[in-house]
């Protein structure tokens, strides 16, 4: 059975099987999101688990699949922001974990994009990732980040412009 169908049918009363279906359909993309927004691969597992635990603990009965997805993304975003703030307060956070050595051969350009993302704030990373990697609508992005759709429009425009500029700079160097 298709995961989304299984989740949709049991969304009103989420049992373990429905949760497993929802997890299977959501977790890989969410892990990718956490990896890029948090900026460190080591954070993925912890943030993912915590986000889903928060979802299981705080979800309301009768949520649609889209609402459930928005909930876990919002939870993950909150956890990442909190961690980032703590790190920044401790003056330990400087840059995303970057490649240890200069890119010797990177035909895919992934390292350039990684470095460019590393020069953006977590919110900017979250905005561009959700909108352009996951194809989320402004409303979905707003739901995931706890912003108004109008703010998303403006902030996304700025974040996209910044990333495009950084990518040009990376390509030039």
């Amino acid at each position, binding site marked *: 059975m298709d995961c989304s169908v299984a989740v949709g049918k049991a969304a009103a009363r989420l049992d373990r099987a429905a949760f*497993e279906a929802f*997890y299977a359909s959501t977790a890989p*993309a969410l892990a990718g999101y956490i990896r890029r927004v948090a900026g460190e691969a080591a954070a993925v597992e912890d943030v993912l688990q915590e986000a889903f635990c928060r979802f299981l603990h705080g979800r309301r009965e009768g949520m649609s699949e889209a609402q459930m997805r928005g909930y876990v993304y919002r939870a993950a975003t909150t956890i990442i922001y909190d961690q980032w703030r703590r790190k920044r307060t401790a003056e330990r956070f400087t840059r995303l974990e970057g490649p240890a050595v200069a890119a010797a051969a990177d035909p895919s*350009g992934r390292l350039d994009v990684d470095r460019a993302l590393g020069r953006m704030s977590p919110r900017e990373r979250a905005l561009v990732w959700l909108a*352009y990697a996951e194809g989320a609508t402004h409303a979905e992005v707003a739901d995931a980040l706890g912003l108004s759709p109008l703010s998303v429009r403006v902030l996304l425009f700025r974040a996209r412009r910044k990333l495009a500029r950084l990518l040009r700079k990376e390509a030039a160097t």
Partner: protein
Amino acid sequence: MRLMGCEREGAVWRGARTGQWGPGLREHAAGCGICREVVAVTQGLAALREDAPALEALPGARQIWWRAGWLRSKQAEAAIRPVQRYRRFAAVGVAASVLAAGLSYWTSAAHWIPVPQGQWTVFGLALPAATVALAAVALAGLAVLFTLRAVLADD
């Protein structure tokens, strides 16, 4: 060029993502500043998106389900802890009050309590009646306390 967005932005995003460009769309994307940015960002992020971990590499759903349940029970325990503490204080307070009242009124109450005289035979043993009566009262008091405790614990 519009300041905040282009009306063909969505189509350009889909084209950049899937590689399927509609007629004239690629030319538009090349000439529109916003759409050029959309293409650059979408194609750049698409490379990273392929790095997303597979489901098998992530913690199991069942593990998260049980962990959430365990956390929920821990939080529930933490939530009722103050109530349990209050109950203990209340039980100790009631017991202390009863004891204090019993001690302070003992001398006057002793006149009104009929103390049995002589000897009673219990299980074939002849014992002073007063001692047997006191032991019976003490046992009854203990029984009342245990009953109270059981009732409070069930609540």
